[in-house]
């Protein structure tokens, strides 16, 4: 895997909830596009599952197809979260690649 993580996580605490936003660097190829130079089809390559965990507890699992936009962006709101809590986002794609990143709420 690449040295740099594909996942970016931002969190912000509000009075009633904590907003968690994540941006993932991924091509999300549909398999229907063609290379503009060679005309060869670009194989499908997309994230299938994404999980959000909070202090080890799974809060959401998202299953997606290639209908999700390139460089997927998701946001969630956690009802109860404190500073120092750990958020983990991980994904797995149709080619078996995966990545995971931890984030500490400030």
């Amino acid at each position: 895997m690449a040295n740099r993580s594909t996942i970016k996580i931002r969190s912000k605490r509000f009075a009633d909830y904590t907003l968690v936003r994540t941006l993932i660097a991924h091509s999300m190829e549909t398999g229907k596009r063609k290379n503009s130079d060679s005309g060869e089809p670009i194989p499908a390559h997309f994230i299938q599952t994404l999980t959000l965990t909070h202090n080890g507890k799974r809060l959401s699992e998202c299953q997606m197809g290639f209908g999700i936009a390139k460089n997927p962006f998701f946001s969630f709101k956690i009802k109860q979260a404190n500073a120092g809590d750990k958020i983990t986002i991980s994904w797995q794609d149709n080619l078996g690649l995966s990545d995971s990143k931890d984030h500490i709420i400030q």
Partner: protein
Amino acid sequence: MQINRRQFVKNLLTASASLSLLTFSKISFATWLRSDFSSHPLEASLAELFPEKVIKTSRKIKLKLPRTAENGNIVPITITSSIENIEKVYIFSEKNPVPLVAKFTLDPSLEPYIGARFKMQESCDVIVIIEADDKLYQKRQYVKVTIGGCGG
């Protein structure tokens, strides 16, 4: 054919590696179903996902969607709802080759809120279906797409 020790160890490693790969892919297949994301019309997709279930239109689902999406490759959506005990949230785009865009499971410790970005092939209805207490609720909203996504 004679197998020396080095060859035997090598074979053993390959075998165990492919075995672990097999079990790994089995797990991912269990969670991600190809049939859910197969390309057929919206009605067929709904019938397969929610067999013999009534999907009520609900005002308790609020969608924040652009009226006109200038670029079908990136359509932002924000879903909020006042329905209680939400278990799953589904996003469909009516005329996409694969109507089901994504499905989310939501833990009770999450607010009924999801933000995402998805692709739309052409102007059509976006349908969000929420599963709560074994009941289904839906909300539709038309989005006009100026430039189609999905490989257009």
